[in-house]
């Protein structure tokens, strides 16, 4: 069965420091994986997606994620946090047929 686990419910960083949001997945086949961001009272915006091409995926706003099959991980990183990055982040795995399974979300706080 497919599942996704976000290892931290809340991450707090200082502005200008690196961001790491951790995600592990479980899938019986090579999955499609996504990171979405949600600002308060807004819809979800796609940050990036992995679909079995390059294992290092670059997304919008300076974010990137690396697919590591041996570790079943798809962690999201950014070299330098900005205040506008404060939001909730969802790691998502796609089932065959197109349905999505969402992680529980990680709230990112950025301190000045």
């Amino acid at each position, binding site marked *: 069965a497919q599942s996704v686990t976000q290892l931290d419910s809340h991450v707090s960083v200082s502005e200008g420091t690196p961001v790491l949001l951790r995600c592990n997945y479980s899938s019986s086949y090579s999955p499609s994986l*996504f990171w*979405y961001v949600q600002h308060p*009272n*807004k*819809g*979800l*915006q*796609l940050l990036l*997606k992995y679909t079995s091409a390059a294992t290092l995926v670059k997304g919008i706003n300076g974010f990137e994620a690396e697919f590591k099959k041996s570790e079943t991980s798809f962690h999201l990183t950014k070299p330098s946090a900005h205040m506008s990055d404060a939001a909730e982040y*969802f790691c998502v795995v*796609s089932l065959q*047929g*197109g*349905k*999505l399974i*969402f*992680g*529980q*979300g990680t709230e990112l706080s950025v301190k000045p």
Partner: protein
Amino acid sequence: SQTIHQWPATLVQPVGSPLSLECTVEGTSNPNLYWYRQAAGRGLQLLFYSVGIGQISSEVPQNLSASRPQDRQFILSSKKLLLSDSGFYLCAWSSVRETQYFGPGTRLLVL
């Protein structure tokens, strides 16, 4: 380019009243359409999805129903709202088996 709209943005309804939330997509044909609910402090729960006009699949038994009267229109309804129906409702679209793109959401508060 494709855009997705939801309305209303915010809704406050009394318990027992009916509900109709609308979602429309522009710039694409025959999209897959999805309704999700996001309760406070929780992830997203898939409620319904549709692969074509009149074709609705329900993921969880509940007080809600969905309809797709037109190719790019997806409606979420209820005859009698419950307190537990409060939440943030998100509509999404995708091409077949591709990335899902989300609308801005509707905040529903049932009192």
